[in-house]
């Protein structure tokens, strides 16, 4: 039935939202198309899987996975972003892509390339409302995603920290002149994007009960698509974009079967870009910043 598909689409979309928002923050604030993000997503899922199989408590395993992603993201900042800033924008992009491949293959060497089954922490628990079935993991990821995005948008829009971040987004040199400690804020932004992304990876693992070294790729590209659909640099645009992709994906599976997913998602993306080259919420001349 349609309502159930809508719910499934929104739940799946919430994962893309987390990844899309991370890409948006990186491009909007730092002007950095950070392709290590799918790797951070994978680290979220894989590290929590490894630690769970070693008998760690779920909270400790997830916490450690998030911390690992944050550390890797700081390494990306140091090695990939900071060193290549001032070069053409393609250089940090390619460098971060190198990080993604490196991370995937390091994990592959560590645990093999097989798809692994993630333990079902929440059992078969689910909510039934009317005739609708909502899995507990999906419901948690949806609620958590929205809480995080609302919190993020409050911080960006209403706080001192948010104004400083938006100043960096508009003009780093002006931010410096206004006394914004850019050197200290930028690593924090890398940590923030890592936490969002890795949490997406954990939620994905909890919801779909599988992880692999390459789990970040498909989701990562859809996260980029979510960002582009929303109009690069707009947080709420990325939220809408992520939900739209989730809905298209679930809708196309339901209507035409699993093989058509990517055709539907990326076909729609192409069509949208032909009709609206700046995405749904992007502005042509002045690109909206966050």
């Amino acid at each position: 039935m349609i309502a159930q598909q809508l719910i499934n689409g929104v739940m799946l979309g919430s994962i893309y939202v987390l990844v899309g928002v991370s890409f948006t923050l990186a491009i909007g604030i730092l002007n950095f198309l950070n392709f290590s993000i799918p790797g951070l997503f994978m680290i979220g899922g894989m590290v929590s899987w490894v630690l769970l199989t070693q008998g760690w408590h779920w909270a400790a395993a997830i916490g450690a996975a998030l911390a690992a992603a944050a550390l890797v993201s700081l390494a990306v900042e140091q090695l990939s972003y900071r060193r290549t800033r001032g070069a053409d924008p393609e250089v940090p992009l390619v460098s971060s892509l190198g990080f993604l491949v490196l991370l995937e293959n390091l994990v592959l060497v560590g645990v093999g390339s097989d798809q692994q089954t993630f333990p079902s922490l929440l059992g078969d628990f689910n909510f039934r409302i009317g005739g609708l079935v909502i899995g507990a993991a999906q419901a948690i990821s949806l609620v958590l995603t929205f809480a995080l995005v609302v919190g993020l948008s409050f911080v960006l829009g209403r706080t001192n920290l948010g104004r400083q971040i938006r100043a960096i987004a508009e003009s780093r040199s002006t931010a410096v002149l206004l006394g914004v400690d850019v050197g200290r804020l930028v690593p924090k932004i890398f940590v923030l994007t890592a936490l969002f992304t890795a949490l997406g990876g954990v939620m994905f693992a909890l919801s779909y009960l599988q992880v692999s070294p390459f789990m970040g790729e498909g989701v990562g590209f859809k996260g980029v698509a979510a960002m582009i659909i929303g109009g690069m640099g707009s947080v709420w645009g990325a939220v809408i974009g992520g939900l739209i992709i989730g809905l298209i994906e679930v809708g196309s599976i339901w209507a035409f079967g699993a093989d058509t997913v990517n055709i539907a998602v990326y076909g729609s993306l192409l069509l949208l870009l032909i009709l609206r080259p700046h995405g749904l919420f992007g502005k042509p001349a002045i690109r909206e910043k966050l």
Partner: protein
Amino acid sequence: MSAILSVSDLTVAYGGVTALDGVSLSVEEGEIVTVLGANGAGKTTLLLGIMGAVPAMRGRIQFRDADLSRARPHTRLAKGLVLVPEGRQVLVSLTVEENLLLGAHLRRDRQAVRSEIAAIYERFPNLGQRRHTAAATLSGGEQQMVAIGRAMVARPQVLMLDEPSLGLSPLFVSKVFDLIQEMNRSGLTIVLVEQNTGKALSVAHSATVLELGKVAVAGPCDALRNDHRLLEAYLGGSAESSGDPQPMRVGSQ
């Protein structure tokens, strides 16, 4: 009197090209110092060097009894060195109010910040009416008021302004100069970079003229106003670039 800010031997290069070559500047507490010079003379670089926003190859920045030569920009700002940057640099994606709040981001006394911002709105009702609209929609003159307001809520001890009258209508030019004099009368020390030499010399107490990154002339304004070397030093660059041997009248009143 003792210098509140003293710059000595400041040298800044952009990728091997020296833009500022051993410049010294001493600013007494409570005075207006104007820094003059042709396009490319190094005026902006001097202010950026004082803020620590460009790396200095050599030189010393002394503020009261603190040596700030190695301090980063936010530390210098916290000490009271505040810049109204060239071209205003109002953040156009932020609202008027957000720009003003951003100016005060290092302060913790929010109540006082709020009332200072309210005072700015009272002084410039246009800004008050448009406090929640994007600064992009303001005129150049209004943006300059936001830029000065944003600097004032940072509680400057030395306020540096980089060509604040550039590109403004005559009405706003006189508003800017009135404001500068008013702020100075209430005790604020000001470093004013200007192309509008006549106006700058009429409000300032002392002047420093830069030429090709070096100090060409420096001294009290009374003495410099009729000094021919000042005219030559100041006009050297622009007369050269326009190919016009006829000296312009500067500082006439």
